[in-house]
């Protein structure tokens, strides 16, 4: 997926664990894991707002866009 989630980087900078962030923003650890591992299909603004507030960062610090070229198939 072209949208990259850099949550691990921000968590490391703020020295916060995933389970603590999940507790603070009111989502389950499983959901946070879905977000961290890039499996999420969508993020609510309310969740993004809560993450940015707790990690004192901007949405662009967590989200990045990288258009990947399709790998050529070899026969």
């Amino acid at each position, binding site marked *: 997926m072209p949208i990259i989630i850099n949550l691990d980087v921000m968590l490391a900078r703020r020295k916060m664990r995933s389970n603590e962030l999940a507790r603070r923003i009111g989502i389950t650890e499983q*959901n*946070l894991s*879905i*977000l961290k591992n890039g*499996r*999420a*299909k*969508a*993020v609510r603004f309310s*969740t993004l707002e809560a993450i940015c507030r707790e990690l004192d960062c901007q949405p662009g610090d967590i989200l990045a866009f990288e258009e990947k070229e399709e790998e050529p198939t070899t026969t």
Partner: protein
Amino acid sequence: MTDDRVQKIQKTSRRFRLLFGGLLVVIPAVNVLFWLGFNHLPPGFLDGMPVVIARPLPFWVLASVFLVNLLPVGVAMYGMAALRKLFGLYERGIIFSAETVACFRRLGWSVILWVLASTLFQTAASVLFTLGNPPGQKQLVIQFSSNHLAVIIAGGIVILIARIMDQGRMLQDEQALTV
């Protein structure tokens, strides 16, 4: 969905799962008994046959008709197996999933195929039952009525419902992966 509603669904689904599981055993057993005792059945039991039958019929005729009868019976059992699996999934609280969609799809196709199989059976049975008749009294019957058409349409509707449920499943999956 509230816990009460989910529990009611699970309870009712368990009953239907057991019902269809039982039918999967009973129907083939009754089918075998029917053909084994065919020559001794009361006349009313033969009303569904495509031709008037002069009994007793020789064993090889009954065995042949029984084998052809396995077609519609097999399709019906396939449909019932799909229903048993479907209600098993509902019992476990799995409502919108790829597996439940597949069950609906199999059910729809089994309904349609059952019409074709039973039409084929009726035709083959009419030939087999009258094979021993004198010349000029052998018959080949092909039956297709508005009832058959209605059942085919019903099967098509079930398949369409499966497709719509698949869309529901995709929405649910997307919702589950929305953080």
